């Protein structure tokens, strides 16, 4: 039953970077004493040392990082806030609740993992670049395309001829009264047919020319 009353927490502190070894030790001891006074037990410590910030905090570029894992009753957690806020050498702090099954991983292990992943990604990239350079020169089957073009032109000839013969037969049957208009239309398709024939002949002579 005692285990149920206490929960696991993690506190991260950022101290001023230029305190010196002795002062940082004293400050950390103060924090430890505050935790132990309120019935907490520290079971893991991880001192990162001086580390660069991602952005400026209070006109500083660096800070001393320290991480403690401790167990405490949840009601007494708020009593940690006052001494930490009043302490002027503590830049920032963060208290996080961690699950019971949480495995403690130090910063070094995270950095090792990140370095391994980076190395794997670099390897994959190199392999991809090698693979890309090899198969690219393959697509060179252009002469086939020319043969296909000639075939298409022949098909088009067959399609065009029956289409233009049909309108000639239909129009005179439907509209007999307006004789002038269909005559003009009849003349036009005939002229068009002649043009098409000339074009087709020229295409047959020189099949490379594209319409």
């Amino acid at each position, binding site marked *: 039953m005692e285990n149920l009353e206490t929960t696991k927490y993690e506190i*991260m502190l*950022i101290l001023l970077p230029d305190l010196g070894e002795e002062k940082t030790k004293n400050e950390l001891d103060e924090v430890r004493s505050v935790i132990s006074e309120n019935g907490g037990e520290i079971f893991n410590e991880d001192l990162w040392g001086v580390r660069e*910030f*991602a*952005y400026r*905090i209070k006109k500083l570029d660096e*800070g001393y990082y320290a*991480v403690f894992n401790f167990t405490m009753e949840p009601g007494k957690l708020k009593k940690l806030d006052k001494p930490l806020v009043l302490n002027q050498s503590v830049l*920032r702090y*963060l208290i*996080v609740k*961690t*699950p019971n*099954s*949480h495995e403690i*991983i130090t*910063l070094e292990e*995270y950095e090792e*993992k*990140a370095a391994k*992943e980076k190395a794997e990604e670099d390897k994959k990239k190199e392999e991809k670049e090698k693979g890309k350079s090899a198969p690219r020169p393959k697509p060179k089957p252009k002469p086939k395309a020319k043969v296909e073009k000639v075939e298409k032109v022949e098909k088009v000839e067959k399609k065009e001829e029956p289409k233009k013969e049909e309108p000639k037969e239909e129009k005179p049957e439907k509209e007999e009264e307006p004789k002038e208009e269909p005559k003009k239309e009849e003349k036009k398709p005939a002229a068009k047919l002649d043009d098409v024939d000339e074009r087709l002949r020229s295409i047959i002579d020189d099949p490379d020319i594209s319409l």
Partner: protein
Amino acid sequence: MPSYKNRKCHFCENQLEHIDYKNVSLIEKFTSQYFKIVPRYYSGACLKHQKKLTTAIKNARIMGLTSFIR
């Protein structure tokens, strides 16, 4: 990037229940070029893990591990 139909949450697949704010290399995969949090339809995370991710990213920002803006 997996296809939209068959894709699964990155954290459900690897069984990462608790997302640690100290794991900077993992967190930066789910932030954009300008260090903004990537929305769910790009990150592919389920709702439960996306919420945990956002808290982890915000904690890491407060502690100066990743930046707010580029």
